[in-house]
C-alpha cells in the first residue's frame, strides 16, 4: 500500500524519508515540486499526482507536506486519512506538528512510523496503544533518561492491541476520577451582501477529557437528541445504543479524545449571533477606496460575544490601508494582503466600527470584486443549537467521579459577502 513517506517543508526540502518496502529514490518528489511550482497556493496542489511509475498522495498540514508514494491501486482516502492520522499523532506526542519538532525528535518519529505501518499497511494507529509502546517525550523523562540511561520504548506488550477495546490502556489508575465534556459548536454560514443568510448550518463536536480508573462504561444522554441530524463517532461508541436510545454508550479511551461529531440540520433555523454592516468601495478615479464596517449583536442568546475578529482577503491591488477602529486593533499583512481586525468583546451599547481609506497600486485597474469578510467569534456557555447534555452515568466501576460539561459556540466558516 503505502510505499514510502517523505516529509517536505514549505520551501521544498525533504527533511525526512521513510520506506516500508524497497527504497524509492527521492527523485520521485520532483513531480511534486513541479506541481507545487505551478500552484499559487500550497493548498492548490492536487492531493493525488500521477507519475510514470508511482502515484503521489500528498497532504498539507502545518506548513508541511506529507508525501506518500503508492505503486498500486489503493483507495486514496485511505492514504489521506492515514497521513492525517500520522500528523495527529505527531501533534499528540510533541504538542505541535512542525519541522523543528520533528527534526528534534527524529528517532521517536521513526519509531512511531515503524509501529504505525507494517509493509505499508496501517498497524496500530490508536494513540493509547502507541503511547504504551513508545512513550512521548517529556522534559522530566528526558532528564531522567539521561541520568539513568532509561529508554523511551516500552517493553511491555501493547495489551490494548489485543483487547476488544484497543483504544484503551489497561490498568489505568487515578486518584481523582474526572470526566469532562466540551460541547463545541461552530456556525458555518454564508451571509449575503444585503444581510440575508444564504446558507447556515451548525457543526458540533464533543471533545472529551476522561481520567478514570479501570474500565468504566459511560453513558451520556441528551435532553434533545432529535436536534442531531447526522453524527459520527469515535470507534468506542456503540452504534446500537445510539440507534435505539439516542444515548452515547462507550468505554472511553484514556485522556483526551473526540467523542462525536454532529451536524444540526439546516431545516432548523440557525441563529446568527452578529450582523455586519459593511461597505467597501473603490473609486473609479484615483487609486484609492473606502472601507466602513460595523458589527452588532443579533441573536446571542443573552450571552456576550467574545474574541470577535474580522479577516479580509484584500484584492491584490490594495497597497496599504489607513483605518481607524473604535474598538480593538487592526493589522494589514502586505505580502498576503490580509486585513485582520481584532475586536475582542462585543459591547452592545457601543458598536465597534472600522473606517478609513484604502490606497491602491498606482496604475492598476480598479478591482471589480469586493473581498468577502471572514468572521471569527466565540460565545461561552451556550451551544447555539440548544443541545443540552442530560446526564452521564457510569457502570462497571464503583468510585465516584467528577463530571462536567462545558458549552462553547464558535464561528466556523462564517463568511459575509460584499
Amino acid at each position: 500500500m503505502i510505499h514510502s513517506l517523505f516529509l517536505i517543508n514549505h520551501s521544498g526540502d525533504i527533511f525526512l524519508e521513510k520506506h516500508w518496502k524497497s527504497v524509492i529514490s527521492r527523485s520521485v518528489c520532483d513531480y511534486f515540486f513541479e506541481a507545487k511550482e505551478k500552484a499559487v497556493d500550497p493548498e492548490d496542489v492536487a492531493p493525488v499526482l500521477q507519475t510514470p511509475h508511482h502515484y503521489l498522495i500528498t497532504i498539507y498540514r502545518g506548513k508541511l507536506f506529507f508525501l506518500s508514494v503508492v505503486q498500486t491501486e489503493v483507495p486514496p482516502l485511505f492514504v489521506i486519512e492515514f497521513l492525517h492520522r500520522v500528523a495527529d499523532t505527531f501533534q499528540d506526542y510533541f504538542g505541535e506538528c512542525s519541522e523543528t519538532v520533528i527534526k528534534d525528535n527524529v528517532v521517536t518519529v521513526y519509531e512511531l512510523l515503524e509501529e504505525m505501518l507494517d509493509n505499508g499497511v496501517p498497524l496500530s494507529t490508536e494513540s493509547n496503544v502507541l503511547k504504551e509502546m513508545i512513550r512521548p517525550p517529556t522534559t522530566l523523562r528526558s532528564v531522567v533518561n539521561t541520568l539513568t540511561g532509561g529508554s523511551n520504548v516500552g517493553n511491555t506488550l501493547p495489551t490494548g492491541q489485543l483487547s476488544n477495546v484497543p483504544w484503551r490502556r489497561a490498568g489505568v489508575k487515578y486518584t481523582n476520577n474526572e470526566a469532562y465534556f466540551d460541547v463545541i459548536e461552530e456556525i458555518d454560514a454564508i451571509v449575503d451582501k444585503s444581510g440575508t443568510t444564504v446558507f447556515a448550518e451548525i457543526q458540533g463536536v464533543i471533545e472529551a477529557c476522561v481520567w478514570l480508573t479501570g474500565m468504566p462504561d459511560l453513558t451520556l444522554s441528551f435532553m434533545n437528541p432529535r436536534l442531531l441530524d447526522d453524527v459520527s463517532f469515535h470507534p468506542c461508541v456503540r452504534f446500537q445504543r445510539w440507534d435505539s436510545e439516542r444515548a452515547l454508550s462507550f468505554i472511553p479511551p484514556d485522556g483526551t479524545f473526540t467523542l462525536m461529531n454532529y451536524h444540526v440540520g439546516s431545516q432548523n433555523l440557525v441563529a446568527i449571533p452578529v450582523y455586519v454592516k459593511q461597505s467597501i468601495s473603490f473609486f473609479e478615479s484615483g487609486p484609492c477606496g473606502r472601507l466602513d464596517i460595523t458589527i452588532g449583536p443579533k441573536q446571542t442568546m443573552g450571552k456576550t460575544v467574545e474574541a470577535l475578529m474580522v479577516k479580509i482577503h484584500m484584492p491584490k491591488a490594495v497597497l496599504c490601508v489607513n483605518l481607524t477602529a473604535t474598538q480593538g486593533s487592526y493589522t494589514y499583512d502586505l505580502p498576503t494582503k490580509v486585513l485582520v481586525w481584532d475586536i475582542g468583546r462585543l459591547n452592545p451599547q457601543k458598536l465597534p466600527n472600522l473606517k478609513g481609506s484604502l490606497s491602491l497600486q498606482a496604475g492598476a485597474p480598479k478591482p471589480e470584486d469586493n473581498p468577502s469578510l471572514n468572521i471569527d467569534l466565540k460565545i461561552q456557555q451556550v451551544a447555539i443549537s440548544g443541545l443540552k447534555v442530560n446526564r452521564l452515568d457510569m457502570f462497571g466501576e464503583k468510585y465516584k467521579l467528577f463530571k462536567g460539561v462545558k458549552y462553547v459556540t464558535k464561528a466556523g466558516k462564517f463568511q459575509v459577502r460584499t
Partner: protein
Amino acid sequence: MLDSNKDSLKLEAMKRIVAMIARGKNASDLFPAVVKNVACKNIEVKKLVYVYLVRYAEEQQDLALLSISTFQRGLKDPNQLIRASALRVLSSIRVTIIVPIMMLAIKEAASDMSPYVRKTAAHAIPKLYSLDPEQKDQLIEVIEKLLADKTTLVAGSVVMAFEEVCPERIDLIHKNYRKLCNLLIDVEEWGQVVIINMLTRYARTQFLNPNMNESLLEEGNDKTFYGSDEDEDDEEEEEKDKKAEATMAKRKPYVMDPDHRLLLRNTKPLLQSRNAAVVMAVAQLYFHLAPKVEVGVIAKALVRLLRSHSEVQYVVLQNVATMTIKRRGMFEPYLKSFYIRSTDPTQIKVLKLEVLTNLANETNISTILREFQTYIKSMDKDFVAATIQAIGRCATNIGEVRDTCLNGLVQLLSNRDELVVAESVVVIKKLLQMQPEKHSDIIKHMAKLTDNIQVPMARASILWLIGEYCEHVPKIAPDVLRKMAKSFTNEEDIVKLQIINLAAKLYLTNSKQTKLLTQYVLNLAKYDQNYDIRDRARFIRQLIVPTEKSGALSKYAKKLFLALKPAPVLESPFKDRDHFQLGSLSHLLNAKAGGYQELPDWPEAAPDPSVRNVEVKDSVPEWTKCSSREKRKEKKVEKPFYSDSEGESGPTESADSESDSASGSEIGSGIGESGSGSESEESEEGSESEEEEEEEKEEKDKKKIKKELKKPVQESESEQSSEEEERKHERKSKQRKSDSESESDEDDESESESSQSESEDSESEAEVKKKKKAAESKPPSKPVKKETKKEKKEMSLLDLDDFEPAPSPQVTPVSAFLSNSLVTDLEGLSMSDAVLSPAAISPSSALKSYELLHRIRGEGLSVEYCFSRQPFSPDANMVAVQVQFTNNATSETKNLHMEDVKLQSGMRVKEFPEIELLPAGETATAVMGIDFCDSTQAANFQLCTHTRKFFVSIQPPVGELMRPVFLTENEFKKEQGQLMGMNEITEKLTLDAKCRNEHAIVQRVTTAANLSRVPCGSDRECRFAGRTVTSGSLVLATVATKEEGDAQLMVNCEKMVIGTMLVKDIHLALTQ
C-alpha cells in the same frame, strides 16, 4: 560506540544512525557493526537495529544473513510480542535466500495461538509474495487458513493479504462471507476499508442486481436527465419508481439474497465512522450494490466529510460528482452544502461547481444561477472561467433558462477581464449553435468584440460563429473578414485557420463582395510558416475556386462548408467515470492504476447461494443457523455488536475474549472447526456458545427432552443436542446435507494441523470440566499431554528442546488427533445420555457404530460400539473403542464388566471400568482399548452383568487401525517415493456419481479410513496420510481423478496386507 558494552552508548550511536537514515543519508557502511547488535538485550537498541536492518538488508544480503538466526530464535520466544516482531522483521528483510525460512515462519505463525502473531503472519504474506511470487500456491493455503480465523484482529490483515496475493480467488471468500460481514463492525478501521472494498467486488459476482427490473426504465430516465425536454423532477421520478415497481411485480419478482441484505445492513452503521476512508468505502458499496431507493442514506455522510481536511474534500467531491450524474436526487437536499466559499482552494471550488451543475434542475436553477453570479465576481480567475462553463452547461441542460444564461453571458462580454470575456465567448458560441436564428444581435455584438479581444481561442470562436451564420449578419460579415485580412499575418495559427474558413464560407454565400478578399487571404495563407495553414489554404482554393481541373468536388463545396452542424453536447467530465469502482485511485485519476481490480458486472443469474450457507455454518455455526436463518440473523446482528454491556454476550465477546485469554476455552472453540470429524466442532461449540444460543436452546430443549431420557440436562450437552436438532432440520433438505457434510470434512482436514497446539490448552481445560461433570471415570489428562508432547517432538520440524507447553505452546504441525481426544471427551458426555447422538452427529456415518449385542439377545440390554478415532490415552498402541450400553429392560442392570478375553497372539485389551449400575431406560458409555496388532482379527470376550454372560466379539475395519498424521506435500512425496514397488497398490475405479467432487471424495475416504488429508497443489488429486496404530508404519493414500468419474486409487503401505484391504475398503466407499 556500537562496540561498547554500555547500552546507553549503543543507543546513542543507533539514534544517530537512524537520524542519518531519516535524512536520507547513506549509512550502509556501518552494516557489520550494526548487525552485531541485533541480539542486544536492550529493547530500544534492538528496535533501532531492526529499523536499520530492514532498510539496508537488501543491499547487503550476505551480511544480513548473520542476523537471521536471532529472528529464528525470536520466533520461538514465549512472549507473543517478541514472536510477532521477529516475524515482522524477518519478513521485511528482502533477501531472496531466506524465502523458505520465511515461508516456514509464516506457516507456523499462522497457527500461533496469539491472534497478534497471526495478524503479523497475515501482514508477512504480501511481503513474501512480492519477494518471490512463485510461493503463491503455498501462500494461498495460508491465506485460506487465516481467512477462517474468527478474531477481528486478523480479519482485516488477512483480507489485505488476499487482495494483494490472490484477489481472483473469490471462492475462498464463500465460506467466510457471513463471518466477515458480522465481524466487520469490530475490525479496526483500516481493515474495514479493505474488507468493504473486497466485499463489494464479491457481491457483484454473487448477487443479482437489485435494480435489475428498473434498469430498462433507467435508460429512459437517462434521456430525461440529459435530453432536451428536461421536465422531470422528483415527483416524476417517484412516479417512475412506482411504474418500475409495477413492472417489477409483473415480471419475475426480485428477491434480495439474505446475504446481500446482511452486507448492506452490517455496513450501514459504519457510515457513522470517524474515518473518512471507511465512510467512503461504505458509500461506494451502497452506490454499487444497494437498491436505488436505499442509496440515499450515504448522501448525508458524504456531505459530512466535506467539513474535513481539504484533501478529503477533494476526493469526496470527485466521487460525489460521479454519483450526482447517476443519482441526482440523492444530493439535492444538500445543495447548499456545496456552495462555495472564497477561502476554498481552487481545485475544491471547481469540483463543487461541477457538483452544483450536475444538481441543477428547473426547480433550483434560479438559486444556483444566483450563486453563480456571485462566483463570477471572484478574484480567482480560473474559478471564474469554470463558472462560466458551468453556466453554459446549465443552459444547455435546462431549456427554460437558456435565454437568461445567454443574456448573462453576453453581459460578461463587457467584463474588463479578458479571460472572462474569452471564456464567455467560447461558451456563447456553443450555446448559439443550438438556436442561431434567434440571436443575430448577439452575433453582431460579438463581431464588434473582435477589435478588443486578444485571446486567440475567443477570436477563433467569434470568427467561426460569423462564418457559420453569415446569412444572419450579411452586412457585418464581409467587414469582419476585411479587418481580419488586414491583421492576418499577426494572428495565432488557430485564428488564421478560422479566417480561412470564414473567407471560404463568405465566398460561397456572398462571392460578389468577398471574392477579392478571399483570394487575398488565401494568398497570404499560401506563404504562411505553418504547414497546416498552407495545407488548408491549398485545399480550400481547390474546392471553392472553380477551375477546369477541379472536378466534381467543387459542386459540393457549399454542402461541405455550410452543412448543418450538430450542436455540441456540453457534458460533465465525470460522465461514465462510474465504471471505475468509486473511491478508488483509478476513479480519481480516471485511468486504470496498477493492480486495479475491475468491478465486475452483475451476473445474469445468481450463482448458487448455498456455497456460503453450508460452509459458513461450519466456520460460524453459532451465527447462522439454517433453520429460521433470517430471524436469527436479525437478532444476532442487532444484539451483539456494540451493544450494551448486558447484551454483550454475542460474537463480539467470543471473538474478543479469544484474543484476551490465550488459554481460554474460547480459543479451542475459535478453531473448533478443525477437528477431524464433523462432529468435533459441533460438540465444542456446544460447550462454548451457551449464552448465544439460549433463546434457541429453550425452544429446542422442549422437543429434545421428550425424546431423550430423563437424565439431568447439563449445560453443554443440551447445547449440543440442540445443535443436533438443528442438524436434523437441515437434513430434510437433502442436497444441503450432502454439501454440508463434504464441506465440513474438507475444511476440517485442511485445517486440522493448524490448530493442534492451540487446542491443547483448551483441551486440558475442557477435560477438567468434564471430569467434574461426567459420571464415568475419565482418563487422566496428564498422560494425554505427555503423549502429545512426545508426538510433537516426533513431528516437529524444528528443534524444540526448550519447548515449554504451558505459557505458550510452540506451534508445530501434529496429526489431527489431539483435538480428536477433546472431541471424544466431549462426545462421551453427550453419548451417555443421548442414544441418537452418534447417528445424529454424523449422518453419513463418519463414526459408524456397530452392534455388539442386540437387545433381544441381551434380554433388554443392547450394546453398540464405535471407533472413536481418538488416541487411547492409557496406551498409545491401542485403538479406542467406545462402547455404549442401553438398558431397554424394565429392571436395572448391575455390575457390567467384561471377562474371559480371547485374543490372537500379540493382541491386548484394556478393559473398560466396571459399570456398577445401569437403571432401566438409561444409557451409559465406556471406552476400552484394544491393540489389534495391525490385523483385522476379532477380539472375543464375554460381557457380564450381575445375572448373565454374553459372548461378543469386536472386529475392526482396516480403516480404523490407523491414525492420521500430518505431512506436507513434500514430505508426502518423499515418503511415497520410499514406498514403491511391492508396497504400492494401485487400482482403477469409476467414481460413484455422487462423489465426483473433491469434497465428496475426501469425505468418503476419511469415513472409510482414519486418515488425514495432505495439502496438495493439484485439484485433481486428493492425498491422505496415516500411521498404523501399533507399528506406526506409514499409510499413504492418493486418489487421482480423471475425466468422467474415472479415478485411480493408490495406496502405499509397508504392510501389504493392510494396504490391500485398505484399497478394497476405499474402493468400496468411493464406488458406492
